[in-house]
């Protein structure tokens, strides 16, 4: 993020955000205690029920007897419901000085086409993703709040592997050194769009996302760096672009936020808008198939309480097969060590 776009928080906001950033460390003893309990009650993950709901019921019943586990749930609930509020309050303290800067970067080569009259899909409308109160478009500057405060000051500090380094790594994976025209499907606030632009400096980049507030932040990011992104408030599965428009179609950490049938539609849309010979790269969360039953439960419980309604269905899909079904050839899929994350699917549209 451009330094000018990086807010200098006031003391209350700064300290509150630091509090959140240190939350994981503050919970470390609790987590260690819970982990010991899990190892005791689950000596063999393979013996857990196959059905995810039954598995969760078994785990909840067993762990429910642990005071430390109950405490992690209660404290975790506070984090889930408060992180967005703390970030919003921190922003409001600096809103007066930041607003002119944010407005300034809404001008420039990067543009936004809003689409307020189009009905939002049911899988998105009214959903508080990540348990952000009011959803992505609740606050005028929700995109900025999440990009600058939640992502940069919280998630980036503790996320295994680093959210920005991972994006740069993935952006460099497509086989060609140069792409003329790229589409970033579900571009959100532009973190991956940035990685794409830095990897392919001469590329003309288009981004689509359902959230107007997030693409407005992508616009600011683009303009602050002198890039000319064309951003549209449209769903990734229905971009509205002509057939055979792009040389590279991408998405990064979008797929677990949409239902299975929409994922399939998205791959088909990527195939449709790619020129013959074009490349596709889609990255998302670890596949349940790559996890043992205990790790699946951990991911599933995290999704259940973390505002991720589509995670389970999405993480259970064979994305490589979906890519092939959409028409892609030379399809590869790879889970990156050491976290089996991100999970990256690549493919090619035949000439």
């Amino acid at each position: 993020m451009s330094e000018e776009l990086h807010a200098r928080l006031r003391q209350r906001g700064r300290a509150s955000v630091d509090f959140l950033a240190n939350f994981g460390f503050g919970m470390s003893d609790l987590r260690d205690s819970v982990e010991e309990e899990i190892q005791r009650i689950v000596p063999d993950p393979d013996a857990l029920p196959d059905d995810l709901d039954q598995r969760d019921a078994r785990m909840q019943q067993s762990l429910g007897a642990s005071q430390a586990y109950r405490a992690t749930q209660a404290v975790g609930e506070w984090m889930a419901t408060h992180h967005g509020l703390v970030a919003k309050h921190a922003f409001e303290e600096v809103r007066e000085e930041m607003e002119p800067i944010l407005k300034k970067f809404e001008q420039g080569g990067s543009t936004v086409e809003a689409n307020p009259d189009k009905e939002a899909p049911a899988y998105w409308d009214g959903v508080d993703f990540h348990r952000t109160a009011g959803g992505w478009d609740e606050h005028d500057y929700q995109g900025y709040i999440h990009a600058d405060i939640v992502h940069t000051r919280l998630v980036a500090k503790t996320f295994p592997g680093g959210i920005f380094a991972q994006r740069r790594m993935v952006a460099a994976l497509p086989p060609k050194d140069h792409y003329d025209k790229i589409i970033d499907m579900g571009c959100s606030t532009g973190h991956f769009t940035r990685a794409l632009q830095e990897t392919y400096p001469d590329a003309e980049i288009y981004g689509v996302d359902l959230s107007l507030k997030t693409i407005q932040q992508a616009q600011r990011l683009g303009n602050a760096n002198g890039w000319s992104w064309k951003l549209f408030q449209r769903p990734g599965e229905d971009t509205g672009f002509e057939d055979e428009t792009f040389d590279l179609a991408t998405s990064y950490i979008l797929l677990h936020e949409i239902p299975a049938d929409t994922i399939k539609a998205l791959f088909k849309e990527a195939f449709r808008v790619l020129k013959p010979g074009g490349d596709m790269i889609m990255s998302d969360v670890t596949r349940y198939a790559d996890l043992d039953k205990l790790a699946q439960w951990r991911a599933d419980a995290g999704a259940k309480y973390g505002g991720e309604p589509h995670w389970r269905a999405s993480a259970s899909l064979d994305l490589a097969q979906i890519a092939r079904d959409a028409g892609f050839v030379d399809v590869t899929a790879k889970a990156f060590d050491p976290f089996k994350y991100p999970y990256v699917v690549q493919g090619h549209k035949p000439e």
Partner: protein
Amino acid sequence: MSADPKSYNKPQRNMLLETDVNGLAQAVVTLTQEVWVLNDRQMVTEAVLAKHGIDIAEEIDTFTPDETLQSKLDERSRAIMQRVFNSLGGISSDE
């Protein structure tokens, strides 16, 4: 007088029930945050006062901790959280 006045000494009063425990946990963590914010402010105040010895409210509000102070702030923040969270979870703390 219709009731034993001594009953007022230790009145039977309905207070928290088991079903209130989740709300209690939320309140405790909120309190932890507030304590931390104050603690942070005090440490920053001391740091800035040491430099100026004058009214430094605005400077505190816009103060950006250097690496050394940030490290101390993080350490203190984590310790406070651990004491409160461990209490809630029935884990004895060293402190």
